[in-house]
C-alpha cells in the first residue's frame, strides 16, 4: 500500500433518525482508485448511511465526521456536497413530472462544473454515455424517473454517474431489482466510470454485483457499525454462510456504543 492520502474518510460517524441511533460509530477510509463494498442485512443501517453521507435533512449526524479530500463535508447541504464531488446513486430515485431528463442533466452538469456547459459539448458527452449504457436517445426526452421501470431508474442513475464524474460515488443497493442483463450493463457502467482518480462505495445486501464490480475491500455492516473487514473473499464467505455468524459479534459492540 502506497502512502496516498485518503480521498474519502468516514470517521466515527453516528447518525440518528427520529431520535433513534442507526449508525453507531462507523469508520472507513477510501483511497483514490479503490472500490469498497459495505454488505449488511436488512435493518443494519445501509440506507441511513448512504443518505446521511449525502446530507439528507431527515438524518441527523450526532457525532463523528465525513471528509472529502481532507475537507469536512458533514455540515454541507446536499448540493454543496454534490458540487464538491460526492455522488449518491439512489436506491429509490424520485420522479419529477414535467421536468425532462435532458434539462435536468444539463443543469446538474453545469452545477457540478460551476459554469454553464455549452450545448454542443453536453450533447457529445451525453450521447457518448448513453451509447455505453445501451440507452436510447429518446430516453432523455422523458420526465425525470417518471414512469420508469425499476431497471430504467437504475440505468438513469448510472447515466448521471457517468455525466457528473464525481470523486466519490456511493451506490445504494444499485443491484436491487435488476434482472441479469440490466445488472451486467449497470455494472459495466460503474466499471467504465471507475478510474485511479475516484473511489466507489458499493452498499449492498447481496454479493451478486460484486461478480461484476471487483471490490478491493469488503466490510460487514451490522447494527450500524463495521464488524468485519476483508478482501473480496469475504463476500464469498457471506454468500456461503450468510450474515448469521457475524450477528453475535455485534451485540456487545452495539451495547457499548
Amino acid at each position, binding site marked *: 500500500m502506497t502512502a496516498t492520502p485518503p480521498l474519502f474518510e468516514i470517521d466515527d460517524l453516528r447518525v440518528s433518525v427520529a431520535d433513534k441511533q442507526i449508525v453507531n460509530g462507523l469508520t472507513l477510509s477510501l483511497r483514490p482508485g479503490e472500490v469498497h463494498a459495505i454488505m449488511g442485512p436488512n435493518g443494519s443501517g445501509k440506507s441511513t448511511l448512504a443518505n446521511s453521507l449525502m446530507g439528507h435533512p431527515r438524518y441527523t449526524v450526532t457525532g463523528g465526521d465525513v471528509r472529502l479530500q481532507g475537507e469536512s463535508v458533514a455540515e454541507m447541504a446536499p448540493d454543496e456536497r454534490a458540487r464538491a464531488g460526492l455522488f449518491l446513486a439512489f436506491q429509490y430515485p424520485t420522479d419529477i*413530472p414535467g421536468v425532462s431528463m435532458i434539462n435536468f442533466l444539463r443543469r446538474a452538469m453545469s*452545477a457540478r462544473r460551476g459554469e454553464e456547459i455549452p450545448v454542443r459539448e453536453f450533447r457529445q458527452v451525453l450521447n457518448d454515455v448513453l451509447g455505453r449504457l445501451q440507452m436510447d436517445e429518446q430516453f432523455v426526452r422523458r420526465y425525470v424517473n417518471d414512469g420508469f421501470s425499476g431497471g430504467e431508474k437504475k440505468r438513469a442513475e448510472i447515466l448521471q454517474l457517468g455525466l457528473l464524474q464525481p470523486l466519490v460515488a456511493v451506490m445504494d443497493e444499485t443491484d436491487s431489482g435488476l434482472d441479469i442483463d440490466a445488472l451486467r450493463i449497470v455494472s459495466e457502467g460503474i466499471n467504465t466510470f471507475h478510474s485511479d482518480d475516484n473511489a466507489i462505495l458499493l452498499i449492498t445486501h447481496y454479493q451478486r454485483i460484486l461478480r461484476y464490480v471487483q471490490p478491493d475491500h469488503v466490510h460487514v455492516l451490522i447494527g450500524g457499525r463495521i464488524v468485519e473487514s476483508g478482501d473480496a473473499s469475504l463476500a464469498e464467505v457471506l454468500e456461503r454462510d450468510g450474515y448469521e455468524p457475524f450477528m453475535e459479534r455485534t451485540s456487545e459492540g452495539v451495547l457499548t456504543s
Partner: protein
Amino acid sequence: MTTPASEAPVSPRSEYEFGFHDDVEALVKLPKGLSREVVNTISDIKEEPEWMRKLRLKALDHFNARPMPEWGGDLSDIDFNDIHYYVRATDRDESAWEDVPDYIKDTYDKLGIPEAEKQGLLAGVGAQYDSEVVYHNIREDLEEKGVLFLGTDQALREYPDLVKEYFTTVIPPNDNKFAALNTAVWSGGSFIYVPPGVHVDIPLQAYFRINSEDMGQFERTLIIADEGSQIHYVEGCTAPIYSSDSLHSAVVEIICKAGSNVRYTTIQNWSNNVYNLVTKRATAYRDAVMTWVDGNLGSKLTMKYPAVYLMEPGAHGEVLSIASAGQGQQLDAGAKIVHAAPNTTSVITSKSLSMDGGRSSYRGLLKVYDGADGCRSNVRCDALMLDEHSRSDTYPVMEIDEKKVDIGHEATVSKVGDEQLFYLMARGLSEEEATKMIVNGFVEPIIKSLPLEYAVEMNRLIELQMEGSIG
C-alpha cells in the same frame, strides 16, 4: 382620494415590475360613484345608439337588484361608491403608434408591447389605457381579407348592426352581478370578426393597463369566428401598485360558429391591489373548437371561470388554467363546461400553485344535459403548495344528467416534496433552483400549449413570484 377602499395593508409583490404609474392628468374623469347619471354620461360621451343606452340602464337595475356573491373570495371591502367608473386619458383611438401620446407610449414601451409587433410576432395589437382603447392596429393582408380587429366602442360606431346582433347573446346582462355592472358601464375592449374560412395564423394581442388610482376597468370584448375560421387572441394585463384597491370587471363573449377554431390566451399580471372579477364565456357550434388558456399570476382577488357551452354535435371545449398565488393573494379560478348537445367533448386541465401564504382554488362545473349522449370529458386539477402556510382548495362540481357519457376526473394536492428537493440537490442544484425546477415541471402541461414567447413570459413571471417566497 378620500377613504381607501380597503383598510387592509396592501402587500405588493416586492418583485412586481409593472408597479410604476404615470402622473397623467386625465382628459375626462367622472366623479366617484355609480348612478343612472354616471351611466347616462358614459353613454353620452360615447355618442351611442339609444338601444345601448337602454341596455346599460337595464343592466344597472340588474346590478342594483342583485346581492353580492357570498362564495369564492371576500368581496365585502369593495366600495362601489369609491370607484371612478370612467377615466379617459386621451381623446382618440390611434392606429398609428406615432400618434399615441408620448406618456402612454412610454408605458407600453416599458411593457415591451410595440417591440413584439415590430418583430412581426403578432398579427395585430390593441392597447387599452384605463377606460379607453388607445391603439389598435392589424396587419394589412388580414384587413383585406375582411378581418375586423378594433376597439368595441369603435365597432359600435362603425358596425352597429354587427355589434347589436351578438352583444349580450352569450352573457346576458343579468347573468351575474359583475356581468351586470360591466354591461352598465362598459368601455373599451376588443371587437374581432373573422370571416368564413379565414385563418389568422399568428396571434392578435391586446394589452390592458390600469393607470389611475381608485378606478374600475370594465372592458367588453366580443369575438365572432365565422364558419371554418381560425383565430388566436392573447391578452395581458398590468396595473400600478396603489395603497387602495382597483376593480377590473371584464366581460368576454365569444361565438365559435361551425367548424371554427378559437383560442383565447390570458396572462393576467395585475398588481396586488386589483379585484379581478371577470365573466368569460364562449358558445361553440358544430365541430367548432374553443380553447381558453388562462394564466393568473396577479391581483388581490381573482374570481374567473372561463366557460364553453357546447351547443351542437362535434363541438370541443378546452380550458387550460394556471393560477399562482403569492403573499396576500387569493386566486379563485377554474372552468365551466356545458355539454348541451350529443357527441361533444371537453378537457379541463388546471394547475394551482400557492406560496408565501397565498391561496389558490380550483372551482369547476361540468354539466351534461339529458340527451347529450356520447359526450366525453376529462377533468384534471392539480394543486402544489410551496410551504406550510399557503393554502389550496378544489371545488369540482359535476352535474351529469345523461347516462351514456364518458367522464374522467382526477385531482391531486401536493406539497413540494422533501424527497424531490433532496434528489435534485444531491445532483448539485441549489434549493432555489431545485424548487423552480419542480414548479416548472408542475405547470409544464399548460406552458407547452402556449406559443413560445408566451411560454417564456409565463415561466419568467412564475419565477419572479417565487423569488420572494423561497428562503
